[in-house]
């Protein structure tokens, strides 16, 4: 497999890898480094890449594992929580969002979720993967994933209601 066909293979999901990395590592730079690292690892094993049932699921699993390792390692102790803004992305969508602060709130709420729930929420609600695919990526069974997802969604909703009410009381 040469460089261009490898890039063609990974292009459809490299953004998803990056977003999952960012959801876990929070910092944009860290997530970029992690994505690069995982892509290079994939490239090194590109001889075997055709033998995998789903390269995308494999890549997502690698990203997940790499980021969890990063979080566990000592270096991760120096990780800064960088809440990057979305100013340069999707201007039309941003216009619909009256309050950019609410996006930051959502980010902050997500970082309070346990890593597993955070990943599952990311894979389902943002990347819109089927449960079957998520089960493969997370190496969990589907009912466990549904339980975790349900918990995550409820937690996010409750935190948002609290924030929202707090906001109203303040004004």
């Amino acid at each position: 497999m040469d460089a261009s066909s490898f890039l063609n293979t990974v292009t459809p999901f490299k953004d998803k890898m990056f977003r999952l990395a960012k959801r876990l590592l929070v910092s944009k730079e860290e997530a970029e480094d992690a994505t690069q690292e995982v892509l290079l690892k994939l490239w090194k094993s590109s001889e075997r890449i055709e033998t995998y049932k789903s390269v995308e699921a494999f890549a997502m699993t690698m990203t997940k594992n790499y980021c969890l390792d990063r979080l566990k390692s000592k270096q991760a102790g120096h990780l800064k929580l960088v809440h990057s803004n979305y100013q340069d992305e999707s201007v039309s969508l941003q216009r619909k969002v009256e309050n950019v602060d609410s996006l930051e709130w959502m980010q902050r709420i997500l970082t309070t979720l346990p890593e597993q729930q955070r990943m599952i929420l990311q894979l389902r609600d943002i990347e819109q993967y089927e449960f079957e695919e998520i089960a493969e990526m997370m190496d969990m069974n589907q009912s466990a994933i549904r339980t975790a997802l349900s918990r995550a969604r409820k937690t996010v909703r409750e935190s948002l209601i609290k924030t929202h009410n707090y906001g109203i009381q303040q004004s």
Partner: protein
Amino acid sequence: MEFNKVKYIEQLLEKYLEATTTVAEEQELQQYFTQDNVAPHLEEYRMMFSFFAVAKEERFTKNVPLTPEKRNVNYRKWISVAAVAVMIFGAYFGVNSYQQYQQKREAEIAYAETKQAFELLAMNLQKSKVQMGYLNEIDETTQKIFKPVNK
């Protein structure tokens, strides 16, 4: 109509919280909550789904430095090929020159041996030449004896 729509969305949301909605149903929810006309009591969902929509837009913009890796591999491969070539050449010429050296040595030894043999021969010849002197002596004496008789 509007009321029915909200009712339907509320039902979907209930399923959504239990994680029993399909991807298609979740897309419906997303569509509803990213439009302008959202029921006020569902405000928190509007925040959630707008966030999901925006978060999906984030892109990985860094390049993946694949080529140096590849070039490195090639470089290493060629170095080993070159090393093997040097070794083969070295072995070939090495053996060759060793053989030449060996032949030269043999020739030198043979030359020395022949030289020694010739010297031995020359020495013996000299010896025999000295011994031939006695023959002359005989000749002279016979002449001394027989010359006066002939006169």
